[in-house]
């Protein structure tokens, strides 16, 4: 099963600094290198909030978890940066639970839950939709 990667960068304004990576398909030993290449490219810019939208992710192995770990460490190293996960399928969430290895990563049920969380954060970068 291939992996489709869609990357959306927040426009100027409230969403600046936020990058959403939408993954569809299988994140495994064969597809992880391509995600790693694209992550390196997109994290080269000014990013302080990385959101992984996993609604379409059917399969993840430790090769994919390693990339999530790398992303988290890079965001934390930027000082106040964060990686978040939304819309996990149950089988993917189970894998996360088993590993329990991603401390400091926000796991949110959906965009609304992420919005609520971000609205309480004292961050200059706010997810679109939280500013009414």
């Amino acid at each position, binding site marked *: 099963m291939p992996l489709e990667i869609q990357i959306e960068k927040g426009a100027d304004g409230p969403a600046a600094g936020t990058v959403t990576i939408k993954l569809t398909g299988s994140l495994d030993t064969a597809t992880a290198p391509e995600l790693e290449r694209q992550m390196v490219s997109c994290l080269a810019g000014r990013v302080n909030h990385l959101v992984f939208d996993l609604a379409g992710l059917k399969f993840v*192995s430790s090769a994919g978890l390693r990339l999530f770990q790398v992303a988290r460490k890079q965001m*934390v190293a930027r000082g106040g940066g964060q990686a978040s996960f939304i819309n996990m399928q149950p089988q993917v969430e189970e*894998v996360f639970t088993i*590993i*329990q290895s991603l401390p400091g990563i926000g796991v949110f049920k959906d965009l609304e839950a992420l919005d609520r969380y971000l609205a309480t954060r004292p961050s200059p970068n706010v997810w679109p939709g939280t500013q009414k």
Partner: protein
Amino acid sequence: MILELHATPEEVMRAVETLEQFAQAQGVPEKTIFGLTLALEECGSNIVNHALQRDARQQFQVAIEHTGDDFIIELRDRGPAFDPTAAAGRKPQADPDDVPGGWGIQLVRRYLDGIQYRREAGENVLRLIKRLGGPAGPKSIC
């Protein structure tokens, strides 16, 4: 069913897709199939990346068998002797600097009911066992 595979990630995923189709045809529940495919991906990747050093000229073998209540996957490679079950007792760390290399065997342990290793005639032989009468999902986390 026996698959002869070259030591590349793409070949590992070819085996995973073959396993998935075989298990679906046998009526194995989807949740169980997820665990079986994850286990094969982790163990196959380990062979390709470590035992055979991603040398595509090297080959390894995957045998898939459904006998009664058991679903069995057997992997054979001619890499250096390595017993992944010896490292299987390590608990996952909460430390962000934890080395991910050990995560794969942790996942295999959770989703399967048995992992047996032996060195036989210059080959690593890893036998993964799932009892289909048991719970489909991962075992409880201790």
